[in-house]
Each structure stands twice: as C-alpha cells, then as structure tokens.
C-alpha cells in the first residue's frame, strides 16, 4: 500500500509538472494553432535564469526565502521575454504562411535556444539547490512526500485557478477566447489580435518558468537539454487532455503522470519514454480530440 501511495504521489508530482508546461502549449495552440516546439526551451531558460540568480545571490549571502522569491520572479520575467521575442521574430512574420512554415520555424527556435544556452553557459549538468524549506507539518510523512512536492501541487492548482479566472472573467481573456474561435472575426470586432497573441505567449512562458524552477528544485540538476523531453511529454499531455482546453491539459498531464509512474513502478523502467510516446501515438490515432476536447469538423 505504501508503495502504491508513493507511486501515486510520484505520479501526481510528475503530472503537476507536466501540467505547468502543458498549459502553455494548449494556450498557444488554442490561439494560433501552432505546436510551439520551443516551449520546452522556454521552460529550460526559466530554470537556467533561476539558477544563475540563485548562485549570485547565494554568494552575496542573502536570505534563502528572498533568494527563492527573486529567482522565481527573474525566471518568470526572462522566460516571458524569451517567449515574447520568439513569437515576434519567428512566428509573427509567418502568419498566413503554409502550415508547415511556422512549425519548422519553431523547430529552429527550439534548436537555437538549446545551442545558445549550451554555448553561453555549459553542456554539463549543473546542481540546482533546493531552496524550498522543509515544512514542519510534513515530518510524520517523511519518505512519502517532500515539501517541494507539496509546493508543486499547490502552485499547479493555483495557476490553473488563476488562468481560468483570467480567461473567463477578464477583458483580455474574452479577447483571447474570441481570437481562438475566429481570428478574422475577432479582428473585425476590434480585438487587437497581435496583442492577444503576445499576451498568450507571455502567460504561457511565465507558467513554464514556474514549472522550470519547481522541477529543477525537485530533481536537483539541470542542463540545456531538459526542455526537450519535458516539452514533448507536456505536449503529449496537452493532446491527451484535448489540445486547446486548459482543464484538459491538467487532466491529461495527471493521467500521463500517473500512468508513467505506475508503469515504471510496477512493470519496467527501461521503457518509460517509449511508453509516453506510445501513449501519444495511440491517442492521436484513436481519439485525436483528446479526453476533454470536442471532435470538430474542419470547416471547408
């Protein structure tokens, strides 16, 4: 039973982390129907920025919690800036181009950011300090759940709530929904589509940055390549939940997290990644609209 609980919580952690990345995928896809291959790299950049800030401030001897707060903030700011810039440089000029073009461009951005970090920083794995303090109330559960994991659950839930409120109730959210439904129509009724798209990238990137900091704290090391697999898996999760749907992204992430966790725990850990990909292939073939997505007939 303990083992089950351990796997369950492990799956929940994985799922929550995937969710933070998957939300960005799903939002961007919802608005401009682009699989933003570079999204995983934005998350990686968030983690790197945080690490750099943490290292500098630690040497200056700052208080741990203050460091954590500032590092997280920096990660969010810079990740958003990268997301924003990538959109302006690599995707915006391609609106209206054939569908393949922005996709290839996104692959280019992904590859570029990886190599940029590789060259500007290092190819080695860097240790990432865990600055999240141990919570007192968790002491009886030691070995089952760590405080980092609790923070991950809470942050993911909070992000989902905030984003839902943002999209349901704010003016910008309304503009986002309008743009997602029909971009030309939205433009006609006076929505500033460029701004909505930029905003979507910023929010998605900020969420990914949060994910980056949390995962790095949880796993304890980062390198320039962490964005790739995480990005793909988050994408699987987003598709699984029904791409374009935010609750779907979270649900899909949790389902993927748990299945992975139980699969590796009870069956085999060799084929962990094979499993995720197989999952993806099967969903796309049998239920391309995902768990919460609606099957749409493309308008002709």
């Amino acid at each position, binding site marked *: 039973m303990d083992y089950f609980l351990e796997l369950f919580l492990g799956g929940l952690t994985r799922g929550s982390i995937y969710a933070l990345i998957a939300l960005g995928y799903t939002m961007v896809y919802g608005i401009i129907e682009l699989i933003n291959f570079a999204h995983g790299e934005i998350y990686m950049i968030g983690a790197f*920025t945080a690490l*750099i800030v943490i*290292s500098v401030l630690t040497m200056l001897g700052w208080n741990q919690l203050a460091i954590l707060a500032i590092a997280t903030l920096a990660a969010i700011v810079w990740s958003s800036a990268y997301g924003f810039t990538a959109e302006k440089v690599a995707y915006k000029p391609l609106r209206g181009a054939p569908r393949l073009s922005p996709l*290839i461009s996104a692959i280019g951005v992904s590859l*570029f950011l990886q190599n940029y970090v590789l060259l*500007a*920083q290092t190819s080695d794995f860097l240790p990432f300090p865990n600055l999240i303090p141990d919570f007192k109330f968790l002491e009886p559960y030691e070995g089952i759940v760590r405080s980092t994991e609790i923070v991950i659950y809470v942050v993911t839930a909070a992000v989902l709530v905030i984003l839902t409120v943002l999209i349901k109730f704010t003016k910008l959210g309304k503009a986002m929904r309008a743009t997602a439904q029909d971009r030309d129509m939205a433009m006609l009724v006076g929505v500033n589509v460029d701004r909505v798209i930029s905003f979507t990238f910023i929010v998605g990137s900020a969420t990914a940055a949060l994910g980056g900091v949390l995962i790095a704290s949880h796993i304890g090391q980062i390198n320039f390549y962490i964005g790739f697999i995480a990005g793909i898996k988050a994408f699987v999760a987003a598709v699984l939940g029904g791409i374009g749907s935010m609750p779907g992204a979270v649900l899909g992430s949790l389902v993927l997290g748990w299945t992975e966790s139980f699969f590796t725990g009870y069956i085999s850990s060799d084929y962990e*990644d094979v499993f995720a990909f197989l999952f993806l292939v099967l969903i796309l*073939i049998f239920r391309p609209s995902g768990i919460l997505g609606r099957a749409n007939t493309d308008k002709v």
Partner: protein
Amino acid sequence: MNTIKELKKSFLIALWFMFLTFPIMVIKVNTVEQTIDWRWNRLAMVGIFSFFASWIWRYLLQRKEMGQKRAEESETPTLTFQQRVLQNPKFTRPALVVICIFAAIFPFYFSMYQVNIMTTALIYVILGLGLNIVVGLAGLLDLGYVAFYAVGAYSYALLNVHFGMGFWACLPIGAGLAMLFGIVLGFPVLRLRGDYLAIVTLGFGEIIRLILENWNEFSFGPSGIANIPRPGFFGIKMSIHQSLIYIYFIMVAMVIFTIFVVRRLQDSRIGRAWIALREDEVACQATGIDKTKTKLSAFALGATWAGMGGVVFAAKTTFINPASFTIWESIMILCIVVLGGMGSIVGVIFGAGILILLPEYLRAFSEYRMLMFAAALVLMMVFRPHGIISAVRRTYQFEGSPEKKASS
C-alpha cells in the same frame, strides 16, 4: 526613409536584446570556486549585433513584401536569375560535365579523409532526396525519418551478424524493410493533420531508437554492433583505402540513381498528386485523389531511401549504435531539405553540401554549427520559404502548345 526613426527603433531593439540575453550571456557562475564571471564584453557584442541585425531584418521584410506585391501585379510568372540559369541548357550541360569529371577523379586526388567526408555528404544527399519526397513534395512533416535510416542500418548489421549476409544482399532487404516499416507506421498516422503528424512521427522515431537502446538481446543495446563488413566486390580482398573509394563510387552511383528516380517521379501522375496534396488536401480529395494512398506512397518511398542510406552507412562506418539515430539526425536531414529548397533536387544536393561539408572545412565554426543551422531554419522560413534554390514546375510540350520548343 525616416532614418532617425529607424535608428531609434534599432536602438530600442538592441537594448531589448541586451536585457534579454543578460543573465545567460553575461553571468557565468563557477560553482566550484564560488566565483562569478561577468562577461560584459558579450553584452556589448549583443547590443551592436542586434542593432545592425534588426536593421537588416526590417529591410529584408520590407523587400519581401514588395516582392510579393510585384509578383501579384505582374501577369507572367517571373523566373529568378537563379532559376533561369538552372534551366538554361547552355549553362547546365557544361556544369554537369564538370561535376561528373570531378566526381570521377575526386578520390584519386584527395586524401582518404576527404573521400570519407564526401561519402558521408553523399549519404546525406540521398537521405535528403528521400525526405524531400515526403516533406518537399507531399508536404508531410516527418520528424522521425531517422527511424527508417536505423531500420536500414540495423537490417544489414543484424543480418550480417546472424546469417553472415553481405552488403549487396542486404541493400534491397534493408530498403524493403524500411519501406515495410514506412507502410506499417504510416498507415495509422497519415490520417492525422499536419502538425500532429510531425509529433507522432517524432514519437515513432524515438520509440525505435529507445527500443534499439533497451532491447539488448535483439540489438545489442547501447554498445551497438561492430565489425560490420564493408561492401564486397566479387570476393576480391580490398585494402581499407580501396574499399573506401569503392564505397564512394557506390554512393555516387546511388545518388545518380536517386536523382533519376526522383526526377521521374516528380513529373509523373503520382508526383503531381503529391504536390497537389501539399497544396490543398481538401481540393485534392474532391478532385478524386485517394489521400491515404497518395500519402502512404510518399511516406513509403521516402522510407525506402532512408533504408538504403542506412545500409550504406552501416557498411561505411562498420559500427553502429543507437546514438547515431537520434531526433537530431532527423532534424539535420530536415534542415538539408528546408535550407536547400523543398521540392528541388538541386536544392537538396546544395543543402547537403552546405550542412555536411561546410562544418567540416570551417572547423573554427563547428562549435556554432547547430546554432547557425537553427537560425538559418528560422530565417529561411521568414524570408525565403522556398529554400536557397526553389523548385520550378515543369511545362509540358504538346500538339498546339503555345510555346512549343525544340528541347523538352
């Protein structure tokens, strides 16, 4: 032009990029010695570079827009200078002769090292031409192309290890198996929309690599398979040098064969259907083209060529392991197709040349090679989506044709 305004714009963009790249470019923490390396000079470099780059960027964007307008206004399709040159037999014939002579004497005048690199480049040429059928002609973004390359390579290696089969027997088998894989994998996924297809093929590519890595009994795992024999020539024993030259010529022959086949396919009923599919799927179906069958044929043919490439690769390196078949290999081949020119044979050859040979000869830049290719992918998509050399559609000659010419 309003120079002051442009200056200000570029200045602001430069500031933005300096801010953007600040943490990652400037600060480098040495965690062991607990020191921080502030690399301010880089900040200045980023500033200056982005100042000028943004200027050029805007200029190019403007030019592109103007070009589009001009193309819309003019009645006749304007051929670019480069297209005119490539279509002019006065230029192409002598060029072809020179290339043939060069290819024939190359291995006898250059070192073994050079021959080896050239052979690698030629392998990429056929991989590129194969992927070009899938991506360039049929418009299916296949990010798992390397899987078929792996199937070819492993077919030869395993058949050789277990049954002692030789290169020439394995070449068609490897190609055939890759085609079979293409059909089996393609059948379920080709119904998917373009972008999903990209991800699923990427997934398949990784699945195959991970299986090769983990299934030790079958594939010998990460340590791979060594001592794969080089191709034989009627049982004659050859020195390494000789067999490298031999492989080189095999590759030259294969490239010629590939060009021959791809050219004919392009100008056939099937080739037209591929291009139509790329242009508009719905219209294509409504015009009576079987979408699934057409896509599958492109996918399978592309896979076949990857399989052939794989067999030669195994024979050339005599050692393979899963590390040679990562997603980056797929992306590299994609770069060749995209940079060279989707749908254009000359373009793909050119692309392979640039991507494989250039880094070899510009060692100083080899560190930056992936960075530059990545940037090139984006720049290409933004400014020159048809690649360096764009494909030209053929015109047909027939009775009463308005521009009937002597040559065809």
